[in-house]
């Protein structure tokens, strides 16, 4: 049985080119990038080179705008806490209801610390309520943070418009964008977007886990989260993780070059998978509107059957995906993203997210299209909601 990995929003395979670029910095070029002797110079140059690659990846103005971190969560924590610490007189934050837990849980914590946080809602298509955003920005708003693309649904949020709205209401308010799920899937141009801070995580675009980056524009001041040495211009202490930084730099270059492939081929395969599952399985339902989405993601609800049970059966035939059901995470509540979109419970608990990558083949997609309907058919047989299922079947026929 071959492995069919369709969970690339969770993590991705490290690209061979990335891995081989990293290897010398474990074995031969193990110097500390901050040391002054000749031997360490190649490590230092490699970090500098990677910083340039990240600058290009973000289309930032300057290499100095890039801070290397350990990943998406650290980037978000550094950005959010960093901005708030620099604007102690402001106590208001705006975010969305559909952010990643690494951001949402931080805001819950900040509420306990005395900040007021407004959570902007989305409509049933998953689109952000920009009017609500416009109403909420005020003189006390220190930070607005909206994700670029949603990890569960793949929906892309109109960051450029968000920035326009925020800045027109309060020029001093900073905008942080969690760009983790956009990186490698769509183009990120921080200048065009006009954002103040934007974070990414390497392992979502074929670099290894444990490395990330935060873009901070020159007009935005932040305090460090990790205090210690002078690395990253005092914004992030700790010896530079040279091999991983090198790896992410290479991955960023490959990702930028691969955007066209994502937008065409990956999208074609995603659409093929989506169309066929919706067509061939009567209780399948698209959990998002046909709105602007990243090309690799689809979120389909299989009504009246439960997501974990589907995943376990998919796993038995070698297919990896994920679910917004309550049971898969150990949390007892189902996906906050799908609930914010008012997706019915019948569909949330049976929601399956497939996320493709450049390594996904047509053969793999065909395999899922062929082998998923019998699994769903079997699980429908176990469901206590036979009458409701029969009604859907009739409706669809």
């Amino acid at each position, binding site marked *: 049985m071959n492995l069919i990995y369709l969970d690339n929003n969770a993590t991705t395979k490290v690209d061979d080119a990335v891995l081989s670029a990293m290897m010398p910095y474990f074995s031969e070029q193990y110097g500390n990038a901050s040391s002054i002797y000749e031997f360490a110079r190649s490590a230092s140059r490699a970090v500098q080179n990677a910083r340039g690659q990240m600058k290009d990846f973000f289309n930032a103005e300057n290499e100095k705008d890039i801070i290397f971190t350990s990943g998406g969560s650290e980037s978000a924590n550094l950005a959010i806490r960093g901005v708030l610490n620099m604007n102690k007189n402001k106590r208001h934050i705006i975010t969305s209801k559909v952010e990643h837990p690494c951001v949402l849980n931080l805001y819950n914590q900040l509420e306990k610390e005395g900040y007021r946080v407004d959570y902007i809602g989305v409509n049933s298509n998953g689109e952000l309520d920009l009017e609500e955003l416009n109403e909420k920005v005020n003189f006390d708003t220190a930070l607005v943070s909206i994700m670029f693309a949603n990890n569960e649904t793949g929906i892309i949020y109109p960051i450029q418009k968000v920035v326009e709205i925020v800045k027109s209401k309060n020029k001093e308010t900073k905008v942080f964008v969690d760009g983790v799920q956009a990186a490698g899937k769509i183009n990120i141009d921080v200048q065009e977007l006009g954002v103040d801070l934007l974070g990414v995580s390497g392992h979502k675009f074929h670099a290894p886990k444990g490395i990330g980056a935060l873009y901070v524009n020159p007009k935005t001041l932040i305090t460090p989260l990790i205090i210690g040495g002078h690395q990253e211009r005092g914004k992030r202490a700790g010896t530079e993780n040279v091999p991983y930084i090198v790896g992410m730099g290479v991955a960023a270059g490959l990702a930028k070059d691969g955007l066209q492939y994502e937008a065409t081929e990956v999208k074609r395969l995603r659409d093929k998978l989506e169309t066929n599952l919706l067509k061939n399985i009567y209780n399948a339902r698209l959990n998002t509107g046909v709105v602007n989405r990243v090309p690799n993601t689809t979120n389909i609800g299989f009504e009246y059957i439960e997501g974990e049970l589907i995943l376990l059966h998919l796993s038995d035939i070698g297919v990896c995906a994920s679910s917004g059901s309550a049971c898969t995470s150990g949390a*007892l509540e189902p996906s906050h993203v799908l609930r914010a979109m008012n997706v019915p419970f019948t569909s949330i608990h049976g929601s399956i997210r497939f996320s493709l990558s450049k390594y996904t083949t047509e053969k793999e997609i065909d395999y899922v299209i062929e082998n998923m309907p019998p699994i769903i058919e079997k699980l429908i047989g176990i469901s206590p909601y036979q009458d409701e299922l029969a009604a859907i079947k009739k409706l669809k026929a």
Partner: protein
Amino acid sequence: MWDYSEKVIEHYRNPRNVGKLDDADAIGIAGSLACGDQLKIYLKIKNNIVVDAKFQTFGCGSAVASSSILTEMIIGKSLDEVKKITNKDIADQLGGLPPEKMHCSVMGYEALEDALKNYDDYVDLDDLREEPVKEKIICQCFGVTENQIWDAIKHNGLKTVEEVTNFTKAGGACGRCKDAIKDIIDTYYKKQEKEENTSLSPAQKILKISKVIETQIAAELQKDGGDITLVDIDGSKVYVKLRGKCSGCKNAMMTLKGFVENTLKEAVDKNIEVIEVE
């Protein structure tokens, strides 16, 4: 990924007795769509024996496995035997469940209980348990009643709010009922302790008194440089030798005696009287 036992995996892959019994004598339901799992169980009963059982489950792997094994456990059993089955028995039969998944076994138990309640000849389980009916809803998010929490504590020896959440889901969403759950846990153990104490034999009582003195009282007194020695026990009279930090100060010694007496009254028997000996 969950660490499911071989048995759980086997049962969700090949669930037994799936479906509906059109001529069922009793049907039981537990859980709801909103909560993410629901179990329907159908029983065919003849001469007080469960002759057939089927189930339909909306839920995760462990929910299907719990339902499947439950039907296997009850087919061919007498109603008296079936009534004795608890969620723990279901989990044990499956070779255990991950802590966060214990509520699946509880759902099996509840569906079975519901089916038996709906069966004509059936005597209310609550009467058998000799415990008051507590249908008050504690967890609004998941609709968990006081009775369900009480049962989960009783059958599984749960001690913390987190454990109760794993077994019943109560407190797993907004968390507003966590205080109430804590109260139920405290009430349960206080009640249990009282029951234990009223049925203590004289020998058990002596052991318990000396244990409380040793573990609770002496430790507390020693913190302040004092100490206590148990001299004798005669019915409810407990003779002790006390040494306080300020031995000789009468007031301090009175306080000390009061502390010892109250602790023993609370933990063992409210009739206890502490008598100090020189």
